[in-house]
């Protein structure tokens, strides 16, 4: 068992998915044990792969191991079912397989008694299969297949309670919005393939580094690829689907919209980073700008959001934007490090929110409050997640966020760094606000508070595991910790673009980001602790700003307007053209012409034998004359 056998990682859940789909309802407990077992097996198989990689990684020039087979052979290219294991894939696999396993266990408690309990686990298994394939794919075509598979599963799971109209709408919205980006990704893949003649990621990168693409061509191609990442990772301007995707069951939100699927876009950009570096610098500037815009939009919208899951969803957007900024500074290390710890603390936050919803059946923060006494474990876990998200020393988020601020300070304009620090302040504000409103103060809805109870062990155990990881995962930044675990050093010496970096800790960045974080917490405490009267007054005073944030910068309204007035009107014009010109004139028209002319011409038939005989003879004579004329 080594890196060559990495195909087993997606194969096991795939087999479990097939079994669940066919026989799921005949299995005891609807087959949830099979789903969990398959994904846990995937995680178990990941460990020897990791061990093998750690043996190899020190070797000079190690750049991953490719395995797999040719799937379909064409004249000009092979479609490969190929898998590549390298450091980047390993970090992603660690997050995907481990967090998925925990979330599936958590789902046993959360989804208990749901009429489609079995289907939930079936779809989750397919989702994990697609995600692992995406991470391991060694060529862009297989990656694209998995990419779409992930999108499809997200559609299934967001719309899991599709009896609710809002859930069905949210599922559609997510599918269509990400599809806009996916088309860009497909165009990008085709552009890359057209010149290089291969879909293999490694060969395309080599081709680009040898100067095979012209700079403008490559820039265009990578920007199209980035469009796919924008859609999948909910970046501005395709971010509108992520908050709505909270209509799905909470474990889905935790799995898809925090830990795994949405980071696929970040992973894609990280995987393609050598291309971005070769391309015109404007490509990376676009990545930075989009990421920073997303950070600022999400952080401000989160301050006024009142749905507990929505706030966490905005914080996810915020985190994804941060990763994009890190990638904009072409630091794969910082982005992947943040992705790694983010997987833990964001899943933790979502599962904590899920426990709250499960215990109280309320999602609006103004109906919650004072839950810390009723649900101490959840409150503790949520506090850990909050502190990690804010980036308080020594929680994992601190180290990861610090790394991003560092690389931004090294590589990007000072204005970007200023915005980053300000976003850390905003993050602290809205995360603290969320915690204060949900877990402290006076219960606002007595019935919900009476009803509140701690989640069952099957739910709280995964939460506690994640809470522990949210505290310690960040220590991987240290070289000593990395070496103790068998890595060559900290994450900087494991995942990197060009050369390994030792752990560095510029104090200025750490202090400024910590000050911003603590300041944000204090600000939120002053505003929202207790009756939140100050917050209300502030909201009144800055009414236009409050409304702007509350209405999500009117993005949804603008898109709805565009859909109503541009897409649907354009669609109606095309439909009119199709109905009247293509169908009624083109298709029915030619048939009608044949009928009409046949009807008119039948009157030339006399039915008299001599006329026909004469016509035959005249015809023969004319033919004879023509024949003679042509011959001569």
């Amino acid at each position, binding site marked *: 068992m080594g890196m060559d056998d990495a195909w087993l990682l997606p194969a096991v859940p795939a087999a479990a998915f097939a079994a669940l789909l066919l026989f799921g309802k005949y299995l005891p407990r609807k087959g949830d044990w099979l789903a969990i077992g398959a994904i846990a097996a995937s995680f178990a198989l990941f460990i020897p792969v990791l061990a093998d990689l750690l043996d190899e990684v020190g070797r000079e020039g190690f750049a991953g191991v490719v395995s797999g087979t040719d799937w379909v052979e064409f004249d000009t290219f092979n479609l490969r079912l190929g898998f590549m294991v390298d450091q980047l894939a390993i970090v992603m696999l660690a997050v995907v397989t481990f967090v998925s396993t925990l979330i599936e266990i958590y789902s046993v408690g959360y989804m208990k008694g749901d009429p489609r309990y079995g289907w939930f686990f079936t779809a989750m298994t397919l989702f994990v299969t697609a995600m692992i394939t995406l991470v391991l794919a060694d060529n862009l075509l297989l990656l694209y297949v998995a990419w779409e598979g992930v999108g499809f599963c997200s559609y299934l799971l967001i719309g899991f309670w599709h009896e609710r109209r809002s859930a069905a709408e949210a599922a559609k919205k997510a599918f269509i919005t990400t599809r806009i980006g996916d088309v860009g990704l497909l165009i990008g893949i085709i552009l890359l393939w057209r010149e290089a003649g291969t879909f293999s990621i490694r060969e395309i990168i080599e081709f680009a580094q040898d100067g095979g693409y012209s700079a403008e061509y490559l820039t265009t191609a990578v920007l199209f690829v980035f469009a796919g990442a924008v859609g999948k990772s909910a970046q501005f301007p395709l971010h509108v689907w992520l908050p709505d995707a909270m209509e799905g069951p909470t474990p889905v939100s935790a799995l898809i919209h925090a830990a795994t699927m949405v980071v696929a876009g970040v992973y894609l950009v990280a995987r393609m980073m050598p291309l971005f570096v070769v391309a015109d610098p404007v490509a990376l500037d676009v990545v930075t700008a989009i990421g920073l815009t997303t950070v600022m939009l999400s952080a401000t919208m989160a301050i006024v959001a009142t749905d507990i899951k929505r706030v966490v969803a905005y914080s996810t957007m915020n985190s994804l934007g941060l990763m994009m900024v890190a990638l904009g500074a072409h630091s794969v290390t910082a982005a992947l490090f943040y992705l790694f710890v983010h997987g833990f603390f964001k899943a933790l936050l979502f599962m904590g929110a899920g426990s709250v919803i499960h215990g109280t059946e309320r999602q609006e923060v103004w109906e919650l409050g004072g839950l810390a006494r009723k649900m101490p474990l959840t409150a503790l876990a949520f506090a850990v997640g909050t502190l990690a998200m804010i980036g308080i020393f020594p929680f994992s988020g601190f180290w990861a966020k610090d790394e991003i601020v560092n690389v931004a300070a090294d590589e990007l304009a000072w204005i970007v760094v200023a915005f980053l620090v300000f976003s850390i302040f905003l993050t602290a504000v809205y995360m603290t606000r969320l915690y204060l409103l949900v877990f402290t103060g006076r219960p606002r809805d007595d019935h919900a508070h009476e009803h509140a109870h701690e989640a069952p062990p099957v739910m709280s155990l995964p939460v506690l595991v994640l809470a522990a990881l949210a505290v310690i995962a960040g220590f991987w930044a240290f070289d000593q910790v990395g070496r103790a675990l068998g890595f060559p050093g900290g994450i900087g010496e494991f995942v990197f673009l060009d050369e390994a970096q030792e752990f560095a800790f510029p104090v200025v960045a750490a202090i400024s980001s910590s000050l911003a974080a603590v300041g944000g917490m204090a600000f939120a405490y002053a505003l929202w602790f207790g009756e939140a009267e100050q917050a209300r007054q502030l909201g009144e005073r800055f009414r236009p700003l409050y409304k702007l944030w509350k209405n999500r910068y009117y993005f949804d309204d603008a898109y709805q307007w565009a859909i109503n007035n541009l897409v649907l009107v354009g669609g109606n014009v095309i439909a009119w053209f199709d109905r009247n010109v293509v169908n009624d004139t083109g298709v029915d028209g030619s048939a009608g012409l044949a009928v009409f002319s046949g009807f008119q011409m*039948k009157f030339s*038939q*006399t*039915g*008299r*034998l*001599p006329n026909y*005989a*004469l016509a035959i*003879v005249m015809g023969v004579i004319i033919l004879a004359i023509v024949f003679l004329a042509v011959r001569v």
Partner: protein
Amino acid sequence: MIPIQHFLVLSSILFSLGIYGVLARRSAVLILMSVELMLQAVSINFIAFAVYLAPEEFTGLIFAIFVITVAAAEVGLALAIVLRIYRNKATANVDEVDIMKW
């Protein structure tokens, strides 16, 4: 030996007479007879060419026999139709029969 042109002229005359008969006559029976004339003109051509071009082969002769056979069958069929029309319409004049149209 008689030159082949003589046979060809004869068959042309016969054929033309047949065409004239088909176009000019009004009685269905006479038209049928004219058609026979045309068929026999063709047969003469077959035999003449067979004898003059490939005397050791019988292709043309066999064709002539086929033509005679087919002509006999055709006349049998056509006369049956004419009889039916006569039963229905009490006439064999083709000008008065126009039931072949829409």
